């Protein structure tokens, strides 16, 4: 029966080792795989490493590193566990694996770059466990969400479900803009609020609900009407805006400001039993004006308060907006930029339509000129540069 030393020598004979100087040369191009235990990893690691403890290697590596041709430098503390790990990786079909001789300790002692990885707390690891299981999210993705800032325009029908899911997902900063107070007629669909909150400012009710749901979330409230005087200040610094406003002038105002500030907008709108969702990626896809060059006259576009809306509808559309926001934050999949997703609740159908950038768009087209942010009337036309902005 072989003893440890024989097993180790056998493993070393079957793998390639790389010294620290050679490994540092491929830092940035090769994938560094740390196979130490979590308590070792948390005290310091090579920056950008993927961490899979040796005991979980076979179970997790195919999900975390799906490309078997990617060059991998695997390391542990001293180069023993990584030798066995490299052998296992080769057996799993990974084509270009080297084991770091001397391990992390040798690397660190030689003064090569390392850092203390940002780690989730035990509570966070538990709370976000279902995210951490997804290779597309993982710990790095969850950290991104915790660092992300999303602005919700409106704490109403669309903003309620979007805010709840974004808070639950651990988006670290949620801005909420709303100038209304909670009314009993809101509760048929605005699930952020409840009976005890009637008469309270919506932004304060939203803060109470979201902070009770997830203490990781910082809620920034804007108890104000979004206008030309404040829109740029409000949206600047956010990674994504979720548009849950309820009128055309505000949507055009947001569009022009978001183009100026280069902030992507996840658009949602609803009418009775139908909803629309899309993503406006500034100068990378169509903008709101490319899609709706002119608003309909008010008599042809009654608001939900005039025309009614089934309460579940904003729940569905707002949830889709939250999903698109998270996809943008994490760079996941294909967003709805350039596509309109239209949901018809009565037919129970989803249809997509292609949207294009309008070369003649007065806001984002090549001849658009300088955008001026100013209050819009019912016609929502962009303002020429010399137009005075109303305060």
């Amino acid at each position, binding site marked *: 029966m072989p003893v440890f030393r024989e097993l180790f020598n056998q493993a070393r004979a079957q793998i390639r080792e790389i010294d620290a100087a050679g490994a540092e040369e491929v830092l940035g191009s090769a994938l560094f795989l740390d196979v130490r235990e979590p308590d070792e990893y948390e005290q310091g690691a090579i920056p950008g490493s993927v961490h899979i403890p040796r005991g979980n290697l076979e179970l997790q590596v195919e999900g975390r590193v799906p490309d078997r041709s990617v060059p991998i430098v695997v390391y542990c503390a001293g180069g023993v566990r990584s030798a066995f790990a490299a052998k296992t990786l080769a057996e799993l079909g990974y084509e270009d694996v080297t084991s770091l001789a001397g391990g992390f300790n040798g690397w660190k002692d030689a003064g090569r770059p390392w850092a203390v990885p940002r780690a989730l707390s035990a509570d966070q690891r538990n709370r976000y466990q279902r995210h951490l299981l997804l290779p597309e999210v993982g710990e790095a993705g969850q950290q991104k969400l915790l660092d992300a800032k999303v602005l919700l325009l*409106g704490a*109403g*029908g*669309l*903003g309620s479900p979007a805010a709840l899911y974004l808070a639950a997902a651990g988006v670290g900063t949620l801005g909420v803009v709303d100038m209304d107070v909670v009314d009993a007629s809101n509760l048929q669909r605005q699930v952020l609020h409840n009976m005890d909150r009637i008469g309270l400012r919506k932004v304060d009710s939203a803060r109470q609900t979201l902070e009770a749901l997830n203490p990781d979330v910082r809620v920034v409230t804007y108890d104000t009407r979004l206008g030309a005087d404040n829109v740029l200040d409000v949206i600047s610094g956010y990674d994504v805006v979720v*548009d*849950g*406003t*309820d*009128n*055309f002038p505000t*949507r055009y105002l947001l569009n022009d400001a978001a183009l100026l500030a280069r902030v992507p907008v996840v658009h*949602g*709108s*609803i*009418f*009775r*039993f*139908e909803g*629309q969702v899309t993503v406006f990626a500034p100068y990378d896809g169509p903008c709101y004006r490319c*899609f*709706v*060059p*002119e*608003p*309909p006259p008010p008599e*042809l*576009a009654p*608001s*939900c308060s005039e*025309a009614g*809306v089934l309460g579940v509808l*904003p729940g569905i559309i707002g949830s889709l907006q939250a999903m698109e926001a998270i996809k943008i934050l994490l760079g996941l999949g294909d967003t709805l930029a350039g596509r*309109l997703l*239209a949901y*018809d609740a*009565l*037919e129970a159908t989803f*249809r*997509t*339509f*292609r*949207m*294009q950038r*309008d070369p003649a768009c007065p806001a984002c087209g090549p001849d658009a000129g300088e955008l001026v942010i100013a209050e819009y009337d019912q016609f929502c036309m962009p303002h020429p540069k010399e137009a005075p902005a109303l305060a």
Partner: protein
Amino acid sequence: MTAVVRLPSQLRPLAGGRAELEVEGRTVGEVLAAAGGVCPGLTERLFDDAGQLRRFVNVFVAEEDVRFHSGLDTPVAPGGVVSIVPAVAGG
């Protein structure tokens, strides 16, 4: 050449509540004119006085916006679907 016109909920009362109409036509203009013929009031909702599509009404043939193709002259294949998708702003 029968095509299908899909109506949004705002316009369905003009079609007796129906969501889809089957009409004859080879282009978007012909198809929408035929739809207007069977749905009184529809033409005024879709077209301005000059006979142009109103700019807040998006019309798609299959998934394509006719504004970026040949407008009302955009061809419609037999059995093709012409969708009227109005801008809505509710939240």
